[in-house]
């Protein structure tokens, strides 16, 4: 296994690069996971403004309304002094002033008159407060009509407002995405970046000077040398892949392994690994110096990842870009990843889409391997 060991020794010389890519990958995955989770799901909260209230009633219902608004906004109780109220609004000490009249129940609830409000013109948050007040009063009125006492109606409305918010998206999925979605989204960058560099450096070393001639003239057949080289290449890839799954285990533990779709995640990433290995090998065949390698490795890994929805979600990408991205393997990886992230089990329809995505990636890998063979043969005969 002389050639195999040599691959490993050359890799050892460039191990720093692999570690750097792993560090970038894990940092990005963790940060993005955290940021995305925070903004999209768990921390939904309604907008809060400074709201002035003049409560001339002081009754149960009026106090209930004030308490309700205090739960959402920063409520400031004010005296009914028009000059002072105008001044506070002018200086934006408050954005909205609600005046509850002395006979609130009679005036507003029974006779249906509107509450007097003063607000910053054109402010969308004021409109929002209007909606909240209107909604609150309507609900109270419903409860009262149903025979609830004022206290119980207020209590019932209070309990309703604590229902959690469920976000719906336009693509028929729910916000209930797997927590490891983001982790798997960035894996192509790790594979492409790290493998393009390592394979490039290794193949470049074997191309230097007359090394190839010396090896061809040796007592080990070229076929065996190639097999050992491929074994080493495969080994490097598999170790990287395993590190990826160690990361999943470390970050998400049994949540990932007990999910019904972990097999598809494994299959999808392994296919992506084959694509990355064959592509990096193909690139390595044309690389002649480390500057060129650095440029090409960055271009291939970053460009493919940006175009195919690794760094930017596909939902927000331009359709023409996505059309072009279909000619790149990472797009199909991300397609499969998207499907897996939105489901807990796969219906036959989605399973079909997953398998098509994986199949197309394999076709890309086959195309790269064919190119490798053609170039090798051409060079040998040339």
């Amino acid at each position: 296994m002389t050639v195999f060991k040599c691959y490993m020794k050359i890799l050892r010389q460039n191990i720093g690069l692999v570690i750097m890519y792993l560090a970038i990958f894990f940092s990005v995955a963790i940060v993005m996971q955290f940021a995305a989770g925070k903004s999209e799901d768990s921390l939904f909260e309604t907008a809060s403004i400074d709201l002035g209230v003049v409560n001339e009633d002081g009754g149960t219902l009026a106090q209930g309304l004030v308490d309700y608004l205090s739960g959402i906004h920063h409520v400031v109780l004010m005296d009914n002094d028009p000059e002072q109220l105008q001044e506070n609004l002018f200086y934006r000490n408050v954005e909205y002033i609600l005046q509850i009249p002395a006979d609130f129940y009679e005036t507003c609830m029974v006779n249906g008159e509107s509450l007097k409000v003063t607000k910053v013109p054109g402010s969308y948050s004021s409109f929002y407060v209007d909606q909240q007040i209107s909604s609150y009063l309507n609900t109270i009125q419903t409860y009262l009509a149903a025979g609830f006492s004022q206290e119980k109606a207020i209590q019932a409305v209070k309990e309703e407002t604590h229902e959690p918010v469920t976000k719906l998206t336009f693509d028929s999925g729910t916000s209930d995405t797997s927590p490891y979605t983001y982790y798997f989204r960035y894996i192509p960058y790790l594979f492409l970046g790290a493998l393009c560099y390592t394979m490039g450096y290794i193949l470049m070393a074997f191309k230097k000077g007359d090394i190839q001639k010396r090896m061809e003239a040796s007592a080990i057949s070229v076929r065996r040398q190639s097999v050992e080289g491929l074994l080493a290449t495969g080994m490097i890839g598999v170790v990287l892949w395993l590190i990826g799954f160690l990361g999943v285990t470390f970050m998400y533990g049994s949540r990932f392994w007990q999910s019904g779709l972990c097999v598809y995640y494994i299959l999808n990433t392994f296919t992506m690994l084959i694509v990355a290995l064959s592509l990096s090998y193909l690139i390595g065949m044309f690389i002649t110096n480390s500057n060129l390698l650095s440029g090409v490795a960055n271009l291939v890994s970053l460009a493919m990842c940006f175009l195919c929805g690794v760094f930017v979600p596909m939902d927000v990408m331009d359709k023409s870009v996505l059309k072009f991205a279909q000619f790149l393997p990472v797009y199909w990886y991300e397609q499969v990843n998207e499907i897996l992230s939105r489901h807990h089990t796969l219906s036959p329809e989605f399973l079909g889409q997953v398998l098509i995505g994986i199949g197309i990636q394999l076709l890309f890998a086959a195309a790269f391997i064919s190119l490798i063979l053609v170039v090798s043969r051409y060079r040998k005969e040339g």
Partner: protein
Amino acid sequence: MSENIVQIENLVKRYGDLVALDHLNLKIAEGEIFGLLGPNGSGKTTAINCMLSLLKYDKGAIRIFGEDMRPDNYKVKQQIGIVLQNVAVFDELTVYENIDYFCGLYIPDKKKRKALVEEAITFAGLDDYRKMHPKKLSGGLLRRLNIACGIAHKPRLIIMDEPTVAVDPQSRNKILEGIKKLNEQGSTIIYTSHYMEEVEQICTRIAIMDHGHVIASGTREELKKMIKTGETITIEAIPLTEKNLEEIQTLPHVFDLHYEDQVLTVRCTGARHNLIQLLNYLQSQDITFGQVSSELPTLNDVFLEITGKQLRD
């Protein structure tokens, strides 16, 4: 006479319209240091590449150790070591690792290989550099490492293609001494070069190549006997007249002369006393002269006489 371990018959190699090897014939006996001498582009490297099955040839036959040389004849390849023109070592591996790697392409047994690598390191004088990477070695040391990588598995036949290109004189001498030592240890060596001094210094038999075929071959002495020049005399003289030059031309054994920038070069056949005769003539004509030198024929003279051009043209 020892057995011929390399036999090349009517080898033809074409690159399109260019004939790189034109019916090349060679026989190399076991135990020789066989020099393949010729100007750049004469076909030496092509011949070596064909011998090693690195190049396909159009016609002819190559037999090494009595067997047809084919790309898959690993039994033959096992017994060949190569030192190529361009240094072929990994920058990422240390001196020891490089020798171990290339030796490993012939010797799978780790224990046996370790002993051989150690021997090669000592042979090449690289003991102090074993843990260094090639980028930190001087040009001479790098060439020595290149040689150590090619000979560590103790091959029966070593093919060296211009191993001293761009090497300083001190390192070159060490390399040449090493080659002689390898030969004494039993290896047959094929040595290609366009440095005639090196070939003269170490080779027991020489073939001179030009335009893809051998134009002369034999031992140094045999080659020199093939030509008319036995001695080349060079004299720095005060201006000579046409009459003087005509008279010198008529002196016994003189067959060619050249006079330029007050330097007279006279080529004589192999007879003795040529220099004395010439000096006597100059004295008799009261011609003052400065530096005088007399040189026996070189391989360059052989090449010059056979082809009409200098070896380094």
